[in-house]
């Protein structure tokens, strides 16, 4: 079970800057463990963000995004009190959604 994300969404004018930290190994599939065995790839492939339930961002990632990924973007037309939710999905098919309120 993946750990929760940390989401910060801050309103500024008619926009909200969103900063997200995700807890994920982002294993490339190219590293070997101590015994020389390849560590299988395991990384987030898709990220979506919604504002009050409406999708505002879709992104696709490869294995070269860093471990415990950071993402920053800016939503137009967002105000304090709005709900921002982020969903990721990884190569194992695991997914996680977390929500934050714009402050």
């Amino acid at each position, binding site marked *: 079970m993946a*750990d*929760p*994300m*940390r989401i910060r969404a801050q309103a500024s004018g008619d926009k909200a800057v969103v*900063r997200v*930290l*995700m*807890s994920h*190994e982002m294993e490339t599939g190219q590293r070997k463990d101590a015994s020389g065995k390849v560590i299988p790839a395991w990384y987030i492939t898709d990220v979506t963000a919604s504002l009050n339930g409406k999708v505002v961002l879709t992104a696709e990632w490869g294995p070269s995004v*860093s*471990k*415990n990924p*950071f993402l*920053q973007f800016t939503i137009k037309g967002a105000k304090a009190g709005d709900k921002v939710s982020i969903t990721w999905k990884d190569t194992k098919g695991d997914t996680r959604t977390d929500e934050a309120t714009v402050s």
Partner: protein
Amino acid sequence: MRVIHLLAGLALAGAVAGAWAQKNPAEAGIEEYRAMLADGNPAELTEAKGEDLWKQKRGPKNASLETCDLGKGPGVVKGAFVELPRYFPDTGKVQDLETRLITCMERIQGFNGAEIMKTPWGKGEKVTVDALATYVAGQSRGMAIKVPQDQPMEREYYEVGKRIFFTRGGTHDFACATCHGQDGKRIRMQDLPNLTKNPGDNAGFPAWPAYRVSTGDVWTMQHRLNDCFRQQRFPEPNYGSDALTALSVYLGVNANGAKSTAPALKR
């Protein structure tokens, strides 16, 4: 050319300190890099996890750690980190953050402390201790380090820790002091804090636990010191040993007055 370049860098990275101009381009580049990473430290993920673990009922006794005494009374977390290691009358020992947390997990939750100490990094309840330590440290963010020297045993540990700090050994004659005994030195591109005195706010003792970019996880001071001794080509220190606690007392007391940035972000 160089001025233009630096200005462009400034504009790109946002409002970052302008001290680069006095440094060589490589150092300036590294500072720019660190400034870009400052916002969004993955240690926050560990901190949040630690807070949950602190409040959760866990272990054979199904109890939370909310009555754990970290030195400022049962359940007081804020400000505890900056006063550790310290002497605890109930164990008769000087304890650092991690060993004290294990005492609480043992006494309050019924875990086997000796087992936790023997557990490898990143496994089992060792993960819990690291997350708890990260949470507890974060609750003292911005506070000044004031590791106590009131008790005789605390002063004893300082003196012993100092001796360990200056002990050369191994195949390379390295001591802690070899790298951390002077001002303004670097190993490769990394600044080496002078740990024989207050190393500043974001270096050495006041910065750990820290998220290490190179390993992609949070290291507590126990882990940090363990890997220092590995690089020193020493045998391995026992987790939670008095030697490490004494060394921590020495580093902590020297850092008194520095503002804690733990959990910080490190290379």
